[in-house]
């Protein structure tokens, strides 16, 4: 590894007007509000941090068991437990203000209006640098179908949030759709500044000895290395379909995995489940990417992004 700072490759990337010191961001719901990880790593080294999803009112979450391990995967049905936007502002934001890290608040709601209200409230919170809009949430006004499953509703939420805030808006897409590029294009047209993907893939698991689901909620969301090939493909397709920046995620455990997404065209990556396996995983990933650039003789991370070569040899 390079020791001389002057010789170190540039790791900074930009997601529209959002500048990140490096392309490695912690993913929503896997890093709490940062506090829990403070004893394990210098949060200032992160490219960015996406907070646990915030809704208008506090939500208690689902009954346990909430998680189950599957081959190379984690099924979760946390149920979007969170303290609600007001408690976030008073209880969690002060700690985040002390950090020199890009903070992205993740928001969700049960109606486009709720999304807009949460976005509005967070706009004035000093530590929040951008919003990530989780549209993998049932629309109560539409029989519980996820906003993200329908391009039209995804666009509606995007418009509502854009009107409510002047922060950069990243819309987080769900993989549980026939054609993610159709949703991506509509969300782009509705004014999103960037896209992030993928959220978890719907799944379930059965305990065959008790004939019961392994999650109390029956179904959950699958994350972890198992979903990586699906995520890389969706990111690659989306990058080609839109012109706004795309943040890739899904099963990134190490620098090699992160590079798959960057080479496929993601301008940054989010790391989720890996934080559970090792609370300092993101640092290893940042260092590993830097080392890879050094080994490859590349002095700017931006020169790696989107370099996938699909020509037949």
């Amino acid at each position, binding site marked *: 590894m390079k020791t001389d700072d002057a010789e170190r490759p540039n790791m900074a990337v930009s997601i529209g007007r959002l500048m990140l010191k490096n392309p490695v961001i912690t993913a929503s719901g896997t890093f*709490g509000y940062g506090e*829990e990880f403070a004893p*394990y790593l210098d949060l200032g080294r992160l490219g960015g941090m996406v907070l646990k999803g915030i809704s208008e009112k506090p939500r208690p979450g689902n009954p*346990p*068991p*909430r998680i189950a391990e599957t081959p190379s995967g984690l099924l979760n049905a946390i149920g979007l437990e969170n303290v609600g936007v007001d408690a976030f502002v008073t209880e969690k934001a002060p700690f985040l203000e002390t950090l020199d890290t890009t903070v992205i608040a993740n928001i969700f709601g049960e109606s486009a209006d709720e999304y807009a209200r949460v976005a509005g409230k967070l706009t004035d919170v000093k530590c929040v640098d951008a919003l990530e809009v989780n549209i993998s949430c049932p629309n109560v006004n539409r029989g519980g179908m996820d906003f993200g499953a329908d391009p039209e509703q995804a666009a509606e939420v995007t418009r509502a949030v854009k009107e409510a805030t002047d922060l950069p808006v990243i819309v987080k897409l769900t993989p549980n759709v026939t054609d993610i590029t159709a949703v991506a294009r509509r969300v782009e047209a509705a004014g999103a500044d960037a896209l992030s993907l993928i959220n978890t893939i719907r799944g379930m698991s059965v305990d065959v000895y008790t004939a019961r689901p392994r999650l109390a909620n029956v179904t959950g969301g699958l994350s972890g290395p198992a979903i990586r090939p699906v995520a890389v493909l969706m990111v690659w397709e989306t990058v080609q379909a839109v012109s706004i920046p795309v943040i890739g995620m899904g099963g990134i455990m190490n620098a090699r995995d992160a590079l798959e997404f960057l080479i496929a065209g993601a301008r940054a990556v989010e790391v989720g489940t890996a934080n*559970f*396996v090792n609370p300092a995983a993101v640092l290893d990933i940042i260092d590993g990417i830097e080392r890879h650039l050094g080994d490859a003789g590349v002095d700017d991370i931006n020169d790696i992004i989107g370099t996938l070569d699909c020509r037949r040899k």
Partner: protein
Amino acid sequence: MEQMRKRETGIVRSNRETARGHYVIEVELSGVFDVVSPGQFVMFRPGTGETPLLSRPFSVCSQTETGETTKIELLYRVVGTGTARMASLRQGDTVNVLGPLGRGFDMDKGSRLILVAGGVGVAPLIFYAGRRRAQEDGGRVRIIAYVGAADEDSIAGADRLEQYCDEVKIATDDGSRGFRGTVTELFRNDVKHYGKEASVVRACGPRAMLSALAEVLDGHDIACQVSMEERMACGIGACLGCAVRVRLDDGSVGYRRVCKEGPVFDMEDIDWHED
């Protein structure tokens, strides 16, 4: 900047089957490892390979400081992929250990201490009993342990408890050793004697056992702390995966994280009624 905590690399010093399906693994940790309070746990993962994906939580059963390094013991039962993999570890293998984590038992100050263990729930209670003995100040504490197991062959750790306890009472489901029945039934027969003198209970075991214990203690003025289990992903309070239902002050129910607010809870705080 203050000293960062980190996931430590450990070396397996020994890993042996002590009762049918039950193992004790001894791990030497090279980094700085905090003093563990009994009831605290570690997140454990074999150092190589990709299975299992997540670390698994285990109560610390003993801790020994040896100059630069710390040795900890975990007592575990093979129940699935992770513990099967763990049982295949051999001396010299590398493992990852994150901890100590969570809230341990409060050290009691009474003159009588009652331990109630179901299966591998004995692990933190061995640690507790040893620590309690070591901390005796003046008056000697009388320690009585109740240990439950499926059958004689799967009683793990009772011998270690005997080093510290005045009495170890055993219950087996099939009666192959000691009382025939559950450990809480065995305890129920004795509980009426315990109210008179300052007694506290420390318990660890499957939820059904702890729930039965709560019922046994109901109406008796005996303070009890229990160590709860729930599936965990992170162990450090971030994933919200390990929720346990508790009774809140206002009488409503809510969730607490077993890894952060627990694993040890005051018995009366847990909502035992449903799950």
